[in-house]
Each structure stands twice: as structure tokens, then as C-alpha cells.
């Protein structure tokens, strides 16, 4: 019986793409002239493992290409060649080509053979131009088997990963002492010491001594700052490199000292199990230290075993994160689960309502059971939602490369700052926010940041900064793209808007309203279009995309100081935070994200403007009143404005007052499609099922505002 290798293809592709991402990240961090050896090792390992995997699966073009790449990297690794700017560019291009090749093979489509062979030729050329100062056949510290000049064959690959050069010093029974003192802002940078300690514990036997002396009294503690420090002892067959890798992301955010101490540790105050999988054991209050050491040999064996093809294709650098007891599950399965749980939530709410109407001794028991059911349902839903959550770093990770390339092309000096990368949001939202963000970042690089000369002349540092930030705010996620560039010229926006009759010649606009103008279709402030931002797509498309996700986008800008785009998104598309409002016998849900505030109107604040209907004054503006019952042809309970309430809502940068009978309550609702069985309804974004089983429509505030302004114009 032969093994069907195709079943491993998907895993290979996925892991290779991930590995290429980490290779790209490492390349971008590589300093010309003084490259970090560990980075080069990471890069080498990626090329090496992709070569191994592709040879195993018979993707000979990829294997051949990665062989050339690997040869060059091996020269770098052994110090025979130096990293130069052209080389770093060549390596980045190789990442692109490899991605394209993998994609083509994955889709079973032909490769761009010309592009591949051109680049492979460049790689070979660079290897051939190796400076002669090194001996022709320099013995690398440890010549890995891959250095063999033979073209890649099936035989070369899977064996090699197991004996990387840096692994040799990892004699059994090493003992390391690690002093680890995070800076106060350690947490704020998205780091968690616990994660690092866990990774260390996976490498060998770890003993932890905490230094809590700097921990202030509870009242004085800023919980966002890190006040703890650790002295760690790690023993086992561990080399220095993997330890360093654990702290790779914390570089510059902590004091770190790693040194080797002799022998095995004698007294271990707090033994830590070697594997995350041993968590179960840890739940037993008293774990025998003997048990703690048992898990360890198993791990040190792992690298020796001839790994399965897939395992071999996995870059070592990411082993720790991939091995942390995770499995890959198809998104459809999770969506199915989400739907079922959504149904469950509704059924549970219906039961609850039913239960509250019953009487008698058994009814009390029933209610207790229902309360339990409600808790369980809620927890289940939250857990399922959390499964769909991914950190935004999946989107952010593409920007370092993009900004570097763009800056180079435009002759600008730009530093990209990424913060809040660990902020999690729904996978669907994550996938759809990528393109708008790319557009905003490109816009910042192209139109925002000035050339170094201009910046210096304006008294700014030559290096411009583009900052991407994400954080949770209320039930939403806020993603910001800001730059310290030239900002937008208010007068120019106004002039342009007037020239295009977007506003009247004498309209007085607030700053906010002026900024909103750039989101109108066809409005672009660039004097000349460049090949970076292009011309077809504008800010209106960005806003449309954000709106489709149920979010909103705002701009703050100051001439000469920079611009800040703030995107607010729901955490998930399946659920919306809403305010229920009553109009006649109907209940509608107004998304909280659209609501500014709710208020009762005084007669004095309402007036009629000819051609614009009823308006009321709100924070110095006159906002039109939209009577929902008129819009929907419903008989209301409140006819006069004083009887009901006004919900001040905004959409498309405009505010209106929605006149309703009453506010009912705030709640999260599961969004159901109206379009599945019916069709799109203007001013309605979907429907939900209330606790009594009836249906309530969810209002699309921007749609209502548009419809109303059309009617007003007609």
C-alpha cells in the first residue's frame, strides 16, 4: 500500500505560506552590514524546509529554486558572504516568487517559468560573485547536508532539518540561567511574559523565581505596566538559540541576560512540566517532581526521529507556536457551529419568556433550569465566537514589506509602527478589512508623508512615521492609521467641494463635516495621481467597504501635523449591539454604533425649514427629523414630537433625528438575513428574532439617511 501524499498538500502549502511570512519578516529586520545571525538562520530554515517539502511532494521547480536560494543563504550563514542591499532585495523578490510558485502549484496552474528562471539566474550569479577572500570550499562551521551541490532530489530533503548547524552545541544536560526583567511598558507592547515562560518550559525543565520587590501596593499599581522580574533556570538538551528565539519579539522591551551554568540543578523550587500538554497534570494540586521530569526526554527525542514529510516541511522557528496543542479546522465547520448556536440562543430566549409566564412549584424549578441553560448557552456562544477570533497581526504583517517597498520607490524615509497587533477580531471582518487598510496605508505613504527634504525644511525629522494601531473599544474594535505627514488642507477640500457642487457656495461646515467630504465618491485631494495610490479607487470605496462591515470611518487631520483615520468595526458580523425602539406595534433595532444619543425634544428647539422639513437644534447644528412611522407607513402611538423620543443617529457623516415612540432596551442581537428569502430592503440591514419569537428589523441608518435626503431633494 502506498501512502497518498496529496492529503498532506494542504498542510504543506499552509505551513509554507506561513513560513514565507516569517522569512519576509526576518528579511525586513535584517540590518545591512551587521546582520543578526539568528535572523539568517531563520531565513535559511524556511528556504530549507520548503525545499524539503516540495522535493518530497515532487514539486521539482520549487525544490530547484529553493536549492539555489538555500545555497546563497548558506554562504551568508557561514559568513562567506555579506548581506548587501541588492542581496536583501533579491531575497525579498525570492519570497514573492516562492509565494507565486506555491500558489500556482496549489491551484494546479502553470508557473511563470520565465520569472522563476530569471530570478534563479540572479541568485546563482550572486553566489558565483562571492568574494574570493574566503577559501573556495570554505568549511562552514557545520556543513549541513544541504550544502551538497547536487540538484534537489527526493532524497535530499526530509532528513536535513533535524541537524541544523546551531543544534550541535546542544549537548544533553545543559543548564542555563536567564535573568529576565521586562520594562514597564512590556504589556503595552503586546508582550506577555507568561507566554515566553511557557515557551521556555517547553524547551526543557524550567524553574522559576519571581522578583516581586518592585511590585507596588495595589492602590499605586498601574495594572497596565509590568512590575515583575524573573530569574529562570532552564535545564535539558537546550541550545542557546531556541532560548533567544523565545525572547525574539521582546527585544528592546526588557533586560535580558542568558548565560550557561554548569551541571544539573539540585533543588528545584517550582518544577514546571515540559509540555503544554501536561496542563491536565498541573490541575492536580500536588504534582510529584518525578512526574515533571518524565515528560522531558520525550521532547528531546522529537528532533531525532525521522519526521514525517509534513513535519519536515515545518520551519523550526515556528515550531513552538504551531505545536502548542492546536488543530486546524475548516471555517465552514465553525460557521455551521455558529449558526447552530445562534438558533440555540433564540430557542433559549423563547423558553425563558415562556417560563416567566408559568406559575406553581414546578415552574420555579423550571426557571432555575432555564437560568442555567441561559448561562451555558451564553458561554457556549462566547466560546464559539472566540474560536473565530484571530489577532489582527494577520493583516498588519503585510505592511512592513509594503511600506518599505513604497518608501523606496518614492524616495521617502518612513518608519512603520505597529501596535495592538494581538487585538482579536472575527475572521470574516479580518479578511475584509485588509484592502481598506492597504489603501489607507498607501495613501499615508504616498500623500501623507513628505519627502525628507520637505520634512527637514518644515522642521520635522527626516523619517516620517506611519502608525497602525488596533484596540478594543466598548464592544467594537478601533483600527487607526495615522501619519505625521502634511495633513489635509481644509481650504483646498472646501474649494474642491464647491467647484464640484458638492456643497453650496455659502455653506458653513464644521471641521468634521469638511473631513467627511473626502469620503464622497470621486473626491481625491492629490494634485497628481501616482502609480502608488493610483486613481481609480478613492476614499469612497474605503468607506463603502467599512460600512459593509457595519463599521464607520472618521478622519482627523491637521495641516502640517498629519492625518489620522479611525475605523470602528464590530467584533463580529454575526451579532450587533442594538437599541430596540418601538414605533406603533413594531419593534426596530438601531445599531448602537450609529447612535449619538437619545433625547426628548422641547417645542422650542424644533422648527420647520422650507424645503428641508422639520429640523431641531442639536449641539449647534440643525438636524433633520425623520419620522420612522412615516417612512414605514405605520400608525404610531406618538404623533407629536413631544410625545415620543428622538434618537440622534449618524451615518455617512451626517446626523439626523429618528423620531420613535419609545426606547425599549439595549441588547445584542443575532443578525439574520432578509435577503435569503426575500430581498434587500432600503434602510434595513437585516432582521433578528426577539425573545418572544417575533421578528424585528435592524435599521441601516446610513441607508435611511440617504433615502430621506433623496426624498427631500425630490
Amino acid at each position, binding site marked *: 500500500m502506498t501512502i497518498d501524499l496529496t492529503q498532506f498538500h494542504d498542510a504543506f502549502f499552509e505551513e509554507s505560506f506561513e513560513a514565507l511570512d516569517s522569512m519576509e519578516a526576518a528579511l525586513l529586520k535584517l540590518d545591512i552590514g551587521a546582520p543578526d545571525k539568528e535572523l539568517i538562520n531563520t531565513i535559511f530554515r524556511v528556504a530549507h524546509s520548503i525545499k524539503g517539502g516540495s522535493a518530497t511532494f515532487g514539486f521539482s521547480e520549487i525544490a530547484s529554486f529553493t536549492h539555489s536560494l538555500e545555497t546563497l543563504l548558506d554562504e551568508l550563514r557561514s559568513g562567506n558572504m555579506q548581506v548587501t542591499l541588492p542581496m536583501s532585495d533579491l531575497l525579498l523578490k525570492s519570497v514573492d516568487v516562492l509565494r507565486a510558485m506555491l500558489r500556482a502549484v496549489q491551484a494546479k496552474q502553470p508557473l511563470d517559468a520565465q520569472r522563476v528562471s530569471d530570478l534563479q539566474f540572479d541568485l546563482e550569479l550572486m553566489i558565483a560573485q562571492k568574494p574570493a577572500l574566503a577559501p573556495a570550499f570554505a568549511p562552514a562551521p557545520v556543513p549541513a547536508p544541504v550544502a551538497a551541490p547536487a540538484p534537489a532530489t527526493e532524497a535530499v530533503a526530509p532528513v536535513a532539518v533535524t541537524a541544523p548547524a546551531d543544534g550541535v552545541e546542544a549537548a544533553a544536560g545543559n543548564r542555563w540561567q536567564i535573568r529576565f526583567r521586562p520594562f514597564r511598558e512590556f504589556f503595552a507592547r503586546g508582550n506577555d511574559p507568561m507566554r515566553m515562560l511557557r515557551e521556555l518550559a517547553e524547551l526543557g525543565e524550567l524553574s522559576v523565581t519571581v522578583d516581586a520587590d518592585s511590585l507596588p501596593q495595589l492602590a499605586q499599581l498601574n495594572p497596565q505596566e509590568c512590575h515583575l522580574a524573573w530569574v529562570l533556570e532552564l535545564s535539558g538538551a537546550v541550545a542557546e538559540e531556541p532560548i533567544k528565539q523565545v525572547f525574539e519579539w521582546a527585544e528592546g522591551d526588557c533586560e535580558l541576560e542568558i548565560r550557561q551554568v554548569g551541571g544539573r540543578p539540585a533543588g528545584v523550587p517550582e518544577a514546571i512540566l515540559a509540555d503544554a500538554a501536561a496542563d491536565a497534570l498541573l490541575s492536580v494540586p500536588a504534582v510529584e517532581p518525578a512526574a515533571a521530569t518524565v515528560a522531558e526526554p520525550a521532547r528531546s527525542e522529537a528532533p531525532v526521529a525521522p519526521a514525517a514529510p509534513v513535519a519536515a516541511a515545518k520551519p523550526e522557528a515556528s515550531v513552538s507556536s504551531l505545536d502548542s496543542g492546536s488543530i486546524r479546522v475548516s471555517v465552514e465547520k465553525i460557521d455551521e457551529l455558529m449558526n447552530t448556536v*445562534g*438558533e440555540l440562543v*433564540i430557542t433559549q430566549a423563547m423558553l425563558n419568556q415562556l417560563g416567566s409566564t408559568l406559575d406553581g412549584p414546578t415552574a420555579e424549578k423550571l426557571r432555575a433550569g432555564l437560568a442555567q441553560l441561559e448561562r451555558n448557552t451564553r458561554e457556549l456562544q462566547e466560546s464559539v465566537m472566540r474560536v473565530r477570533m484571530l489577532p489582527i497581526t494577520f493583516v498588519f504583517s503585510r505592511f512592513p514589506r509594503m511600506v518599505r517597498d513604497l518608501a523606496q520607490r518614492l524616495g521617502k524615509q518612513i518608519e512603520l509602527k505597529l501596535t495592538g497587533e494581538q487585538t482579536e477580531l472575527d475572521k470574516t471582518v479580518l479578511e475584509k478589512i485588509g484592502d481598506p487598510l492597504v489603501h489607507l496605508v498607501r495613501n499615508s505613504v504616498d500623500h501623507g508623508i513628505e519627502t525628507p527634504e520637505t520634512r527637514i525644511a518644515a522642521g520635522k525629522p527626516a523619517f516620517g512615521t506611519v502608525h497602525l494601531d488596533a484596540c478594543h473599544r466598548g464592544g467594537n474594535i478601533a483600527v487607526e492609521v495615522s501619519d505625521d505627514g502634511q495633513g489635509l488642507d481644509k481650504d483646498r477640500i472646501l474649494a474642491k*467641494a464647491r467647484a464640484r457642487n*458638492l*456643497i*453650496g457656495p455659502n*455653506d*458653513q*461646515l464644521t471641521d468634521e*463635516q*469638511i473631513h*467627511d*467630504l473626502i469620503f*464622497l*465618491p*470621486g473626491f481625491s485631494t492629490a494634485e497628481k495621481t501616482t502609480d502608488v495610490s493610483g486613481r481609480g479607487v478613492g476614499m469612497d470605496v474605503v468607506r463603502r467597504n467599512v460600512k459593509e462591515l457595519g463599521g464607520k470611518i472618521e478622519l482627523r487631520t491637521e495641516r502640517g501635523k498629519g492625518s489620522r483615520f479611525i475605523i470602528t468595526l464590530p467584533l463580529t458580523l454575526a451579532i450587533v449591539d442594538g437599541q430596540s425602539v418601538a414605533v406603533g406595534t*413594531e419593534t426596530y433595532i438601531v445599531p448602537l454604533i450609529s447612535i449619538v444619543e437619545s433625547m426628548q425634544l422641547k417645542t422650542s428647539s424644533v422648527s420647520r425649514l422650507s424645503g428641508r422639513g422639520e429640523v431641531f437644534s442639536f449641539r449647534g447644528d440643525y438636524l433633520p427629523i425623520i419620522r420612522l412611522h412615516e*417612512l*414605514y*407607513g*405605520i400608525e404610531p402611538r406618538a404623533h407629536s414630537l413631544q410625545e415620543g423620543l428622538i434618537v440622534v443617529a449618524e451615518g*455617512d*457623516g*451626517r446626523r439626523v433625528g429618528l423620531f420613535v415612540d419609545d426606547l425599549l432596551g439595549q441588547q445584542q442581537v443575532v443578525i*439574520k*438575513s*432578509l435577503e*435569503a*428569502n*426575500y*430581498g*434587500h*430592503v*432600503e*434602510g*434595513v440591514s437585516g*432582521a433578528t*428574532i426577539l425573545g418572544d*419569537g*417575533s*421578528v*424585528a*428589523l435592524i435599521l441601516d441608518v446610513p*441607508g435611511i439617511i*440617504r*433615502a430621506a*435626503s*433623496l426624498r427631500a*431633494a425630490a
Partner: protein
Amino acid sequence: MSSNAAGKTEHGPGAESRQVLTFVLGNETYGVDILRVQEIRGWSAVTKIPHAPSHVLGVLNLRGSIVPIVDLRMRFALERAEYTAITVIIVVSVSSPAGRRDFGVVVDGVSDVVDVNAAEVKPAPELGQRSATDFIRGLVPVSDRMVVLLDIDKLIGSEMRSMGDNAETAEPAPAASAA
């Protein structure tokens, strides 16, 4: 049309025999293909949909999906009846270019499930405007009555097309003023 020539009481699943759910609307009896019927349920209050045609009463929650409800009396321009506890909604599935969709139709009452022999179906008489009879598949005698067989795809499919048009014409033009 070989084996079933004997008559309409034939019960075997003959190739030309189909099961039809019949229901009453005013003085008429109508029939729909039983395979299209998802469920039959009692009347409950619906949620109105803005800008919907007048015979689309609104939407209902049907085991977690949102299903539009059509009043066939209004669709057929019959006199409007009160909705009472015995008013019935037949939920049917319709195939449309956009895929399968579920619709509820409000009728006066459900009568029976009958076998209809294809050979007995007579074409609908051409009465003036073609569109008025488009959704009638034919007429068939059952017991002493004439049952009007409905082509549910055409009946409801045309509804959805007009709804789609609605949505498109409502697509907004760019905002006119920021003030």
C-alpha cells in the same frame, strides 16, 4: 399515460400521478405540488417590511430563518379576509434564479392531499391578459370541484423579481450636501 388510464383513484406512484395539496381561497380551490410544501402552520402576527408590495404582509420567524408571508387573497385581488386562529400559512419553497427560497402563503384553509393524474389536467383557458394566468399550470377536476393548479415558481418568482427591482431603484445616488 399507460397504466393510470383507469381513473383518478389510482394510488400507486405512477409516473403521471402527482400528489397535490389543495386549499381554499374564497370560492375557489387551488392546488400546489406537495413536494414544494415545507410545512403548514397557523397564523401569527407578522413583522411588516417597509416598501413591500401590499400583498407581502411581512416576515415571520420560521425555525430561525426569516420568511416572507404573501396573502394570496390580495395577490388574486379577492376580497380581504380577517386573519383568525384558523387562518393557515402554507410554507412553500420556490426555486428562483437566486436559489431556493422559502415563502409563506396565507390561505383560508387547507382541504386535502389528492393524487392528480397528469392526463386529466386541462390547460387554463386563455382569458385576456396572458400575465394573469401565467402562474396557472392547469385545471383538474377533483370530486365535484375544479382545482386550479398553481405554478408556485411563476407565482412567487415574479414577486421576487419585482422586489429585486425595488431594491435596485432605491440604490442611492451620491450624497448631495454635507450640511
